[in-house]
């Protein structure tokens, strides 16, 4: 079987052969410099670039994590020399080297120069200017409450501190993967009830959206994930699939919340429930971030971009109990009932506590959106989906809530 393709290729027309050859040569071109890769380095995500180009890319944006220019995934481990590609190119140069003209000579000179650069750096052990030696990783240890720490000095990485520069605030090491969490769509900012509302609101928005503003339909687009999502599940695809999808998603979500002034109020109330100690401090998002007593770290990189929601049951319970004891008017419960319910129901590890709640959930929702015809249908589906362990949602959030004694 191993020679199946060999034989087939031999019997193809010249056109097809040319096409194959052309494709191979094209794969030897670096997408950064658009030139041949004499020293092709392959990133852990499988993309190839010239050694020089990748090096320049890493050093040109020292404020950021090391990310693949093609797919933007974090480059945690040092790229390796792709010898296969290198041999292809050498072979091709070898065979085409018959007529030696100036431009061909130039190619050869470049080849030798780039190979020497690489060799020299490798011998001196300074590949990529040592960036993989002098940098650290943001690592979350589950046995340590999942707190993200610098792999170099074990200092806790607060997204707020790491945000500008992606550098460990303690040992100053550059963090190779993305350690700041604030760019993400912070699911923990919202109660699950609000998330549901956001989903609902986005669904409605999408339905109302005229054809003229169709989401981008084309390749290599930042928002193309959105396009592929089916209308049934408006939010699922909007749960960020890594850092890069997030700005788009977040903006949609924020907008959806802004639709309704009540939501802001509700959000604050939700925060109180999350940590009743906090209620005096919270005025708005910024303040809450600044006082830092509630930590949120969202770390995606180490799990190959998979983000996991771990919704701590205990914390939920703690969060709810004081809130219930507190003296709230009936309005409060009307607003928040829904929040509680779906919050629990979204969490796969936690079983629906009471059927009553789910009833009130759907009631609430139909009251909130009486105009939408699909609401009932959608509701049923929602409930189904929520009880499901949500098989589709593979990329999820790890939510880490620390206590106020952190600082």
């Amino acid at each position: 079987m191993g020679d199946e393709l060999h034989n087939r290729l031999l019997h193809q027309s010249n056109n097809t052969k040319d096409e194959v050859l052309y494709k191979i040569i094209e794969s030897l071109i670096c997408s950064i410099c658009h030139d041949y890769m004499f020293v092709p380095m392959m990133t852990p995500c499988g993309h190839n670039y010239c050694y020089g180009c990748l090096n320049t890319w890493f050093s040109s944006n020292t404020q950021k994590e090391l990310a693949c220019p093609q797919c933007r995934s974090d480059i945690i481990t040092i790229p390796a020399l792709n010898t296969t590609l290198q041999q292809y190119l050498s072979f091709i140069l070898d065979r085409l080297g018959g007529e030696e003209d100036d431009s061909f000579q130039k190619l050869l000179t470049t080849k030798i120069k780039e190979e020497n650069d690489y060799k020299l750096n490798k011998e001196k052990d300074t590949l990529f200017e040592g960036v993989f030696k002098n940098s650290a990783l943001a690592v979350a240890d589950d046995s340590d409450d999942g707190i993200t720490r610098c792999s170099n000095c074990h200092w806790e990485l607060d997204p707020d501190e790491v945000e500008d520069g992606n550098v460990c605030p303690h040992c100053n090491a550059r963090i190779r993967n993305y350690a700041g969490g604030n760019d993400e769509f912070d699911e923990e900012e919202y109660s699950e009830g609000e998330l549901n509302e956001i989903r609902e609101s986005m669904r409605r928005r999408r339905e109302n959206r005229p054809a003229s503003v169709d989401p981008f339909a084309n390749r290599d687009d930042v928002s193309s994930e959105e396009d592929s999502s089916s209308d049934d599940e408006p939010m699922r695809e909007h749960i960020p699939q890594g850092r890069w999808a997030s700005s788009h998603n977040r903006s949609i979500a924020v907008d959806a919340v802004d639709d309704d002034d009540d939501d802001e109020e509700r959000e604050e109330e939700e925060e109180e429930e999350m940590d009743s100690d906090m209620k005096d401090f919270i005025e708005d998002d910024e303040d809450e971030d600044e006082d830092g007593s509630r930590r949120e770290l969202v770390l995606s990189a180490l799990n190959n971009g998979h983000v996991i929601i771990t919704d701590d049951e205990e914390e939920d319970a703690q969060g709810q109990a004081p809130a219930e004891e507190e003296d709230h008017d009936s309005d409060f419960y009307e607003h928040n009932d829904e929040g509680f319910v779906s919050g629990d129901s979204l969490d796969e590890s936690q079983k629906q506590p009471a059927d009553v709640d789910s009833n009130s959930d759907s009631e609430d929702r139909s009251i909130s959106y009486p105009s939408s015809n699909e609401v009932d249908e959608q509701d049923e589906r929602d409930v189904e989906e929520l009880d499901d362990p949500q098989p589709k949602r593979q990329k999820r959030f790890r939510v880490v809530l620390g206590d106020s004694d952190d600082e």
Partner: protein
Amino acid sequence: MSRITKEYRLIRKTLASDDPTFNPYRGIIESLNPIDETDLSKWEATIYGPEHTPYEHYQFRMLINVPDSYPMAPPKIMFEKDAILHCNIKSVTGEICLDILKPQDWTPVWDLLHCVHAVWRLLREPVCDSPLDVDMGNIIRCGDTRAYQGIVKYFLTERERNNHT
């Protein structure tokens, strides 16, 4: 040979082609070329208004500044002043708010054709959550697309009228 030189060759070849598989930018990018052939740091581009938007049937010219550090840094793209109305564009200056053109979201894998194409798509899908033109953004947020399109159409008709007088 620098990357921008190579791009220039590719752009010329691509845009000259009538074959849609080779030139996917037909009907999107009218032209993309350096203002002065000897200086590849300043470019101009003309795009067609996307179909089924109020921009349809109009053309929009933008100016592109390619920094020395390109492609490690993104090109700077601006529309002409007072030539377009869009919630992500500051009409007075022509400034465009598009994430992939921001240094933090840029990657060197993109080239000028991608960027211009992305701006074209921005015309097709305004993102009202990060508006440069807050008023226009608010109209979309309120869901009043008819008003939005009406205002854009009016603006563009006026633009044409002023151009002719």
